[in-house]
């Protein structure tokens, strides 16, 4: 006790001592109860922290959306029909296509050479070119027998089975 106690009279000290021997009523809660309440409070605080973070993010996202959607450029695609004069010259596609260069060697790849000739010069190029085998000068259809040549195989059959070598 401090020095002020020295100023108390003996009767006051006796009363002080008698009062001090009284025991305050005990608490009706336990330490375990307090610990449980503390855990609840701590968990609630953590939850509030995450709720605050989520709320701040939501507000930021909303603000960003509002700021972004202010003046916006809208692109409209229009189709406009215009009267244009007819072209003076109508050119046929492929008309002046340059002839395909003939690159195959003589005597090799007969079919390919013939095809190239047909593509570049037309069907007439086959006539009298000497490239068609002599046995096939008269084309026949499969199953059709040429007159006077019942036992002869059509030229293109031989041609196909020969691998294109006539």
């Amino acid at each position: 006790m401090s020095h002020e106690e020295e100023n108390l009279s003996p009767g006051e000290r006796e009363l002080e001592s008698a009062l001090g021997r009284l025991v305050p009523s005990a608490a009706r809660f336990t330490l375990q109860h307090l610990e449980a309440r503390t855990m609840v409070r701590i968990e609630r605080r953590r939850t509030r922290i995450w709720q605050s973070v989520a709320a701040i993010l939501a507000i930021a996202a909303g603000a960003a959306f509002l700021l972004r959607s202010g003046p916006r450029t809208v692109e409209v695609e229009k189709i406009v029909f215009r009267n244009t004069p007819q072209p003076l010259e109508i050119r046929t596609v492929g008309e002046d296509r340059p002839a395909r260069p003939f690159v195959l060697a003589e005597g090799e790849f007969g079919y390919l050479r013939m095809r190239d000739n047909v593509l570049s010069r037309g069907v007439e190029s086959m006539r009298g070119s000497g490239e068609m085998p002599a046995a096939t000068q008269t084309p026949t259809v499969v199953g059709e027998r040429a007159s006077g040549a019942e036992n002869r195989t059509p030229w293109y059959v031989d041609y196909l089975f020969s691998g294109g070598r006539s």
Partner: protein
Amino acid sequence: MIASVQLAFVFDAHAATLILFARQWLDRAAAEDVVQDVFVSLMSQRRSPDNPRAWLYKAVRNAAISHARSASRRSKREMRLAEQRTEFFESGADDLIDASAAQEAMESLPQEQREVIVMRLWAQMTLAEIAEVTGEAVSTLFSRYRSGLLEIKRIMESSCPTKKKI
């Protein structure tokens, strides 16, 4: 956080006295609520206060005064007081003073004197520590303490004229 051993010690030593201290402003149930809240706050703290006893009494004092100032809570308190009357002290065979008489005397004291007497007698706090809690000067507190003791003595003598005078 405060260590559990230290917490158990603080709880055993001060829980009942803190409730008695809070009862200077509140009824028993509200006082227990306030003390529980203060203990939970202490346990939730990351760092233990330097003087846990002074911290507890200061916190209980602030919370009890705040609690008592609420008008709605005050009306509830009055209702609860009308319903129940609980004792400040536990009656013991070796008590030199009748517990209920001491309670009556305590209840008749002014607020400022009661809190000083409770902190001094049952919390074993020095006047300097009490000054830390209340923010009053030590000399003022001593004056209140002494006046309170004299008032208790006077009340008890007047209520029990046949008993032995202390």
